[in-house]
C-alpha cells in the first residue's frame, strides 16, 4: 500500500453539511439526506444542478443510487451507493474524490446517512450470521470487549485500572459533546458514573459503548485548482486510504486483540500519501472510530499517536483533550453523536473541515493544520478501515 500514489492535494472540499445526530423520531432518512445536503450546497455556494455525480454511503438505509436521486431530485446524473460497513460514508467520500481527481467531474457530492431508529432495536438492527447460523452468538460490544480483556491482560492492568483507563476516554468525549449543538448526547459524565455503569459486555460498561442514532452528513468536492473559485478557505484532501482485513483474526491464533492491523496498514498508507513521518507531532487533531472506548485507546496506538502499550500515559496526561497536544474527538465522537453507520465517517470529516476553517465555535482548536479521520467497519477480527487526512 505504501507504493500507491494517491491523490494528495488534487481535490478539495468546498462545502459540508451535517444534521444534528440523535433519535429523529420525527424525521425520515430523506429528511436527513435533504438537510445535510442543503447545508453543504449552501456552504459551497453552488446550486443543486451544479452537481455532476454523487455517491451515497449507507449500511442498511438505502440500496442503490435512487437513495440520493429521489430525495434530492437529482436530474439524471450518475449516483452510486457504496457500502463498506461502518466505513461506508468514508468510502462514499473517497469515491467522489477519485472521480474528481480523475478529471471526469468538476463537482461531486458525497452523502453518508443512516436511519437506525425506525428498526425497533436499541442496538444495531442485524445479527451477524452465516447462512447455516452455525456461528457463536456475538454482538459488537462483545467482540470489542475481547480487545479490552486482552489489552488489560497483556499490560498487567487490573480490571479496575483498565476500566479507569478507558473510562477517562468516555469522560473526555462526553465533555467535548457538551460543546457541540449537533451531538446527540450533551452531558458531562464522571469517571465514577462510567466505572459503576451497568455492564453491556464485560469488561465494557454502558458508557464504554457508543449509542445508536440517526443522522446524515454531506460534502461537495471539486478539483484543488478550482477550489478557490468557490471559497477562500477550501480544505484539501491529503490522504484517502482504506485497508480491508481478510478476516484473519477469526482464524489466526497470532492475532492478539490489542491492535487492529487494518488501522495500522491504512494509517501507514495515509501517512505515506500525505508525507507524514511523525503523526504524533504532525497531525493536529483526529476523529477516531470510538465505537467503544477501548477501540479509541487501541487506535491511538495503531496510528502511532502513542507508543504501543503506552496510551494510558497520554490519556491520563490529557494529551487527547481539547486543549491537549493532539485532541481526539473534538466534536464528541461516536460517544456523543451515536453511530448512524453510513453517516459517521462524513460526520468526522465535517468536524475536521470546520476546525481547519476556524468555525468550530467553543470547540475550536488553535491553528490546526491537519485533521485525521479513522472509520472502522466490522469487528476486531474482521474489518474494513479508512484513514483520511485533510488540511489547509
Amino acid at each position, binding site marked *: 500500500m505504501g507504493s500507491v500514489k494517491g491523490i494528495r492535494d488534487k481535490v478539495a472540499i468546498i462545502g459540508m453539511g451535517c444534521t444534528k445526530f440523535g433519535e429523529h423520531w420525527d424525521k425520515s432518512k430523506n429528511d436527513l439526506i435533504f438537510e445535510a445536503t442543503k447545508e453543504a450546497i449552501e456552504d459551497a455556494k453552488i446550486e443543486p444542478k451544479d452537481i455532476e455525480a454523487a455517491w451515497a454511503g449507507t449500511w442498511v438505509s438505502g440500496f442503490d443510487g435512487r437513495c440520493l436521486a429521489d430525495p434530492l431530485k437529482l436530474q439524471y446524473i450518475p449516483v452510486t451507493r457504496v457500502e463498506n460497513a461502518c466505513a461506508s460514508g468514508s468510502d462514499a467520500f473517497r469515491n467522489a474524490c477519485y472521480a474528481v481527481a480523475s478529471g471526469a467531474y468538476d463537482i461531486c457530492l458525497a452523502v453518508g446517512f443512516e436511519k437506525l431508529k425506525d428498526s425497533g432495536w436499541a442496538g444495531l*438492527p442485524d*445479527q451477524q450470521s*452465516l447462512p447455516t*447460523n452455525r456461528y*457463536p452468538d*456475538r454482538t459488537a460490544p462483545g467482540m470489542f470487549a475481547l480487545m479490552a*480483556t486482552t489489552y488489560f491482560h497483556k499490560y498487567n492492568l487490573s480490571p479496575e485500572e483498565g476500566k479507569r483507563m478507558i473510562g477517562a476516554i468516555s469522560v473526555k468525549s462526553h465533555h467535548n459533546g457538551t460543546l457541540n449543538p449537533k451531538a446527540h448526547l450533551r452531558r458531562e459524565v464522571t469517571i465514577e458514573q462510567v466505572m459503576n455503569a451497568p*455492564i453491556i*459486555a464485560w469488561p465494557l460498561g454502558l458508557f464504554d459503548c457508543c449509542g445508536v442514532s440517526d443522522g446524515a452528513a454531506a460534502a461537495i468536492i471539486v478539483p484543488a485548482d478550482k477550489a478557490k473559485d468557490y471559497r477562500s478557505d477550501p480544505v484539501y484532501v491529503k490522504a484517502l486510504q482504506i485497508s480491508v482485513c481478510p478476516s484473519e483474526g477469526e482464524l489466526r*491464533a497470532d492475532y492478539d486483540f490489542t491492535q487492529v492491523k487494518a488501522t495500522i496498514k491504512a494509517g501507514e498508507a495515509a501517512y505515506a500519501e500525505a508525507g507524514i513521518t511523525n503523526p504524533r507531532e504532525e497531525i493536529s487533531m483526529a476523529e477516531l472510530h470510538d465505537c467503544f472506548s477501548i477501540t479509541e485507546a487501541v487506535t491511538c496506538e495503531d496510528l502511532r499517536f502513542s507508543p504501543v502499550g503506552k496510551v494510558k500515559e497520554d490519556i491520563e496526561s490529557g494529551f487527547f483533550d481539547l486543549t491537549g497536544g493532539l485532541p481526539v474527538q473534538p466534536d464528541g465522537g461516536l460517544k456523543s453523536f451515536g453511530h448512524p453507520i453510513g453517516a459517521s465517517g462524513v460526520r468526522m470529516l465535517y468536524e475536521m473541515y470546520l476546525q481547519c476553517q476556524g468555525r468550530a465555535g467553543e470547540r475550536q482548536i488553535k491553528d490546526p493544520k491537519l485533521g485525521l479521520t479513522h472509520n472502522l467497519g466490522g469487528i476486531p477480527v474482521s474489518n474494513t478501515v479508512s484513514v483520511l487526512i485533510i488540511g489547509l
Partner: protein
Amino acid sequence: MAGIASYGAYIPWYRLSRPDIQQAWDSMIPIPGEKAVAGYDEDSITMAVAAARDCLTGIDPQKVDRLYFASTTSPYKEKQAASVVAGALGLGKGTYTMDFAGSLRAGTNALRAALDAVEAGSASSVLVTCGETRMGAPNGDKEMAFGDGAAALLVSKSGVAVDIDGSLSTFQEFHDVWRSDQDTFVRSWEERFVREAGYMRMVNGTVAAALQKYNLTPADITKAAIYAPDPRLLGMAAGKMGFDPMAQLVDPLYMTVGNTGSALSLMILVSALEDAKAGDRLMCVGYGDGCDVLLMKVTDGIEKIKDRRAIKRHLASKTMITHYLKYIQWRGLMATEPPPRPPLNHISVPALWRDQDYGLSLHGVKCKSCGTPQYPPQRVCVICQAQDNFEPYSFADKKATVNTYSHDNLAASIDRPVTIAAVDFEEGGRIIFNMADRHPDDVKPGMPVEVTFRKVHFFEGIHNYWWKCAPIRC
C-alpha cells in the same frame, strides 16, 4: 462372543434441587435429592453425542459401522436423530444409522439389536447411544422424578470387556406411562396399579424367566442394573426377586440425576462397569411395554477401558441451578421476554447440507503448504495464501486455550450473559466460540477448554447444532 468393547456416559453440569422445586410451588410433600437438567443448549441428541465421545475415547470413530440412537425424546418427530449424532462424531459415510424410539425400553432395545447384528455378522462395531430429556408437568411428581442424561456402549465381537451371554425379553400392551403425539408431558395411570400390575409383575416375571433359562440364581449376579422409576419400587421388586438390594443393586441415580427414562438402564450399566472386575456377572434390565433382560460376564478387557468420564466423574462435576424459573425458561415452559435483538435469519438448508462434513463435526482444513489448521474450510490459506492445497482436519479432539473472552449481556440468548471466547488450538488455528457450562468469574485468558456439541438455535422447526467451548469438564 459379542459384547461391550467400550462405554461412556453423560450427565449435564446443571442440577436442580428438589427442595427448590417444592419451594417454588409451596408444596408440602418433602422429596429429597436433586435432578440433572440439560442446559438450555442441550437435548437428547447433544447429550448422546457427549456420551458417545466419552465412549470413543482412544477409539477410531471410523471403525464404527453402525450408530443407533435411542430416546423417547428425539428432537424430531419426523427426521432421523442418529444421522445427526453420526455426523457430529464424524463417522464414515457407510455407517448404518438407526433411531430407536417410543418405548422406555428403547435403550435396551437398541443394545439387544446391536448384539443381534454383531452376532449375526451383519455389523462389526455398533455404537449404541441413548439420550433422554423427558418432561413431567410442572408441580407434579414426574417433574420431581425425571432427570436428563445419556449413555453410550460400543458393541462388537472382538476385544470385548463384557461378554453378553444371555438375553430374554417379554412384551405387554400396557399404559403405565405414555405420551401421545399431542402431549408435551408424560402421563401415567394410578401409581398402585402401575406398581402392582405393571412394574412388579413384568420385571419380576421376566428376570425370573431369564435366570431360569440360563440356569442362574439371583446369588450368581454380582450387580444388577435394573430400571426403576424410583428407588423404593426397585427395593421392593429386588427383594421379592431374591436380590440383596444393598449388595447387588446398582444405584438407580434417583437422588443425584433422576429417572432418565430409556437411558437409565444403560447409564446404570455403565455405572456398574466402572466398578466391575473380570469374572463379575452383570444383569441389565430395561422396562417399558415389556421387559428386556441382558446377562453378561465381565472379561479381562475391562481393565483396558480407562479415562472415561462415565457416571462417576460426571456426577462429581456439577453446578446448582440458582432458581427454578431458570429451568422453566430453558424448557420453554413459560413465555418470557425475548432477547432485545432482531430475530434470527432464516437457516439455509442447502448451507447446512454443504456443511455436513465440516461444521457438524467441527472439521476444518490444514494447509499442506504451511501446516496451519483453519476453520471454517478455506480455498485460500489465511497464512501463506496457497490455493486449494488443504487436507481435512478435525478440531474436535484437539487441546485448546482461551485467548480472550467477554461476557455479553446484549447477545441474543435466553441465558445471558453469553460468554464469547477466542479459542486457540494447541496444534494451530483459532475458532471463536460461545462458552458453555462455566462460572463467568472463572473464565480467564489462557484457561484450557474443550469443545462440546450443542444446539445453537431452534428456528422454523430446525434444530441447529454446532459447537461451543467449555472449561475442561472433569
